[in-house]
C-alpha cells in the first residue's frame, strides 16, 4: 500500500496515477476485511475501485492526461508533511493498542447496539440496523449530501450546448 502511494506521488502520467489509486482502494478494501469490516470493504471495493476510477477516467478524457514537471523542488510541503506526521505519531503513543477490548471506543454505545439489535429490530446485521435505525438522522443527512452532489454535477456539466454557443460568439 505504501509503495502504491509512493508511486502515486512520483508518477507524472495521470492515467497511471488514476489506475494506481484504484489499486490503492482495492488494497484498502482487503485491509477492511482483515479488520472485520465486511460492509465497509464491500463499499470500498465497489465505490473506490469501481465507480470512482471510472469517473476519474471519464474526467481525464476531458482534460490533459499528463502532469507537467514542476520547476522548483517542493521542500517546504515535504517539511510541513514531516512535521505534521511526527506530531501525529507522537499523538498515537497514547492511543489504545490495536484490538484492545477495553479501549474507550469499545465501552461506550457499541455494546448496547450489539445487545439490542436482534430483540429490538429483528435485524442480525448490526451495521444495517445502526445505519438505518439508531442513526437514522445521520444517514438522512448523508443521503441529502449525495443528492446535493448529484445536483451540483448536473448544474456544472449539464446543459452545456446552450451555454457554449453564446460563448463562441463572445470570442
Amino acid at each position, binding site marked *: 500500500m505504501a509503495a502504491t502511494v509512493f508511486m502515486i506521488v512520483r508518477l507524472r502520467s495521470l492515467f497511471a496515477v488514476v489506475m494506481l489509486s484504484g489499486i490503492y482502494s482495492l488494497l484498502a478494501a482487503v485491509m477492511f476485511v482483515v479488520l472485520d469490516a*465486511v*460492509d465497509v470493504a*464491500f*463499499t470500498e471495493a*465497489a*465505490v473506490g475501485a*469501481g*465507480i470512482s476510477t*471510472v*469517473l476519474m477516467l*471519464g*474526467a481525464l*478524457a*476531458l482534460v490533459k492526461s499528463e502532469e507537467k514537471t514542476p520547476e522548483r523542488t517542493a521542500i517546504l510541503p515535504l517539511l510541513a508533511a514531516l512535521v505534521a506526521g511526527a506530531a501525529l505519531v507522537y499523538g498515537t503513543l497514547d492511543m489504545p493498542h490495536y484490538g484492545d477490548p477495553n479501549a474507550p471506543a469499545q465501552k461506550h454505545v457499541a455494546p448496547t447496539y450489539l445487545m439490542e439489535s436482534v*430483540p*429490538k*429490530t*429483528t*435485524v*442480525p*446485521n448490526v*451495521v*444495517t*440496523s445502526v*445505519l*438505518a*435505525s439508531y442513526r*437514522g*438522522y445521520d*444517514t*438522512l443527512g448523508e*443521503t*441529502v449530501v*449525495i*443528492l446535493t*452532489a*448529484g*445536483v451540483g*454535477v*448536473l448544474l456544472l*456539466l*449539464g446543459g*452545456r*450546448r446552450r451555454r457554449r454557443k453564446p460563448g463562441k460568439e463572445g470570442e
Partner: protein
Amino acid sequence: MIHHLILRVVAKLLIPYILLFGLYVQFHGDFGPGGGFQAGVIFASAFVLYALIYGVEKARQVIPDAVLRVGIGLGVLIYGGTGVVSLLLGANYLDYSPLAHDAPHGQHIGIFAVELGVGITVASVMATIFFQFAGRSERDEED
C-alpha cells in the same frame, strides 16, 4: 467501441446478473453484508458497463435522464417520507416502531424502506454523474 463483438456478448450476459446481485445486496442487507449504499453503487455500475460498451446515447435511451432525475429526488423523499409516516402514527420522526403490529417488526419495515430510499438515490446519482462525464466527452468528439 461498437465493433467489439466479444465485449458486447459478454456484457449482455453479465448485466442481468449485476442487476440481480444489486437487488440481492439491497434486500439481503438486513442479514448479510450489504445495504442501500452498496446496492445503489452496484446497480449504477451495471448501467455504467452498458454505457461503456454500447455508448452513452444508447444507455440514455435505456434509462432516460428524466427517470434518473426523478430517482434522485424520489429516494430522499422515501427516506424523509418514512419519517413523516411514523410522525403521523404518533411516534418521533424516524422512529419506525409503529409501522407494524409490534415494535421490532415495525423497525424492520422502517429499515427496509429507508434502505430502499438510499439505494434509489445512490444509484440514480452515480449513473447521472457518469452519464454527465461520459456524455460530455462524446459530444466533444462530435463537435
